[in-house]
């Protein structure tokens, strides 16, 4: 297995899918000449040409809407929204058009569209540019929402998303493109809607995804030095949500901490905790804890921003609280 960055894994997935299927193409702001805001599509324009690497105007509804239309008539578009903060101006197309088409026309149309975007805070971009509103999008039936935590999953999940016959919102983390991890050689897909145990342990179950996985892994190292072995379940997909591994783990450890970067109110943690309680209330030996962002629009000041964002220490503290 090669060790590559998240950026490379995502780029490879896209490249390989575009090589594999001529109906796959990418469109978005600066995906072509610029090479992608996060350099994911560097070199794509030279190789695939303008037909398949399409620079768009700054028009998020057009980027997603045109993706929907092209998908409806048989193409496999990947529409890139520069960051998830700009997805709000395309909200109608993401949550109200793409996921409704198949149902509302009685199965006649499908929308095999991938919307790639990057979320997350921590880069001093201020409140409008630092959000993790994943739960907002995961709220809508008909839309699939995927957010990988490792390069291997990023590659496999993006390939699966491109081959999926339904609209998939693929959320990357803007501060994770540099992280490295082992990625299998050759072509593979990672199924959407399947959670994974990323670390085994018996003390506490941590349920998390995306950047939360990085925090949790770091916390697990620290805790391990104190003899506390946590089990980490990576959701990978927020919709469909596979609770299987989290539930099994909770029944084993009887304690759970949920780690997410978004705000806790109405969030992923709220959903996961409720499901654990609903299905396994009797197994709980302590109240389930949530580690999440503080409930404010994220400040610019670096120290204040970090204070508002969940940290490794917060995860460590939460685990000790439920023990």
């Amino acid at each position, binding site marked *: 297995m090669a060790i590559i960055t998240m950026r490379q894994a995502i780029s490879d997935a896209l490249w390989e899918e575009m090589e594999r299927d001529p109906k796959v193409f990418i469109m978005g702001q600066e995906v072509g000449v610029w090479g992608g805001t996060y350099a994911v599509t560097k070199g794509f324009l030279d190789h695939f040409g303008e037909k398949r690497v399409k620079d768009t*105007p700054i028009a998020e509804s*057009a980027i997603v809407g045109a993706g929907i*239309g092209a998908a409806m008539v048989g193409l496999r578009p990947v529409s890139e929204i520069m960051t998830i903060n700009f997805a709000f101006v395309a909200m109608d197309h993401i949550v109200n058009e793409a996921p409704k088409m198949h149902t509302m026309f009685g199965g006649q149309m499908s929308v095999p569209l991938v919307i790639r975007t990057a979320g997350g805070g921590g880069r001093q971009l201020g409140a409008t540019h630092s959000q993790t509103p994943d739960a907002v999008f995961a709220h809508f039936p*008909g839309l699939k929402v995927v957010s990988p935590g490792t390069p291997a999953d990023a590659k496999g999940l993006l390939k699966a998303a491109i081959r999926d016959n339904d609209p998939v919102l693929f959320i990357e983390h803007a501060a994770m493109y540099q992280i490295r991890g082992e990625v299998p050689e050759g072509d593979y897909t990672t199924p959407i809607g399947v959670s994974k145990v990323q670390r085994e342990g018996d003390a506490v179950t941590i349920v998390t995804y995306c950047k939360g996985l990085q925090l949790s892994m770091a916390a697990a190292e620290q805790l391990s030095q104190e003899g506390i072995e946590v089990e980490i379940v990576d959701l990978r997909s927020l919709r469909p949500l596979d609770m299987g591994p989290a539930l099994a783990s909770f029944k084993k450890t009887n304690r759970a901490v949920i780690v997410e970067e978004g705000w806790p109110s109405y969030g992923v943690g709220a959903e996961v905790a409720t499901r654990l309680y609903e299905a396994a209330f009797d197994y709980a030996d302590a109240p389930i804890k949530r580690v999440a962002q503080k409930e404010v629009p994220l400040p610019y000041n670096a120290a204040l921003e970090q204070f508002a964002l969940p940290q490794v220490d917060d995860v460590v503290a939460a685990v000790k609280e439920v023990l």
Partner: protein
Amino acid sequence: MALKKKDHLELYRQMVLIRRVEERSAELYQAGKIGGFLHLYIGQEAVSTGIVSVRQPQDRIITAYRDHGVALNVGISAKAVIAELLGKETGVSKGRGGSMHMADVEKNFWGGHAIVGAHLPIAAGMALGDQYEGRDGVTICMFGDGATNIGFFHEGVNLSKVWNLPVLWLCENNQYGMGTAVDRASAVEQIHMKAEGYGIPHSRLEDGMDIMKVREVVGAALDHIRSGKGPYFLEVMTYRFQGHSMGDPQRYREKDEVTKWEKSDPIGIYHRYIVGEKIATKADLDKIEEAVEAEVNEAIEFAEASPDPGFDTLYDYMYASKE
């Protein structure tokens, strides 16, 4: 392009069919058998009938929520239309769409879309699909005057020119968006002038009540686009005789205005044309009207006798991919 007698009779039949289906639907609505919104197309029949009669089979049609006319023009049966209005499993969208969401993909009719203007970027994407695959189809996107004031309009129309997409933007200016007259909502009253700002050739048909004129201008616009010259913008002046939807008290317009327009009833105009040009006799047209009457009666019987979708089918069309 020259029409034979039987072609004229067929177009006349379609216009009368739209009228009867809608008149009877209004009754069914009043009787509480049709739920939700019901937006009637009465008064505008010459527009959709004219458009559909000159398009080639490879030309896609997509429209807004006032969609019964197009649905019948493309050949969706009165049975399937009325059954959809009644929410039945035998409806064209299997009872999932209702009045505003009718489509038949096999007939290259891509729906009925209920969010004002949202289908414009989607239409651009469908046209992109044809351009990408090298097909010579034109996407005909119909929308109201009101839709030209929402951001989607700008994004979709702009993109169509930037990418030179084969799309006909067809604004049906029926002079009101709900209760708001064009001059109270649009900075430019001559809607087609908006295309000027995007460098798209445009024109306005003053007499959209005359199907022969609609056919002529739409045919020319389609030829223009098919010859590779990119998008075209056509504004067709028309009028809706009924309120915006059922139960609209129409306080925003004078009775006189409606009465005046009713004198240019598109069906009356076409009737006079056919008889005046000695294409067919009044008796021929009477016969068509009787046949339509019977067809609609039968359709209502069929729809009323049709089953509701079973509760066990609730999730049937949530995802296109079957795991």
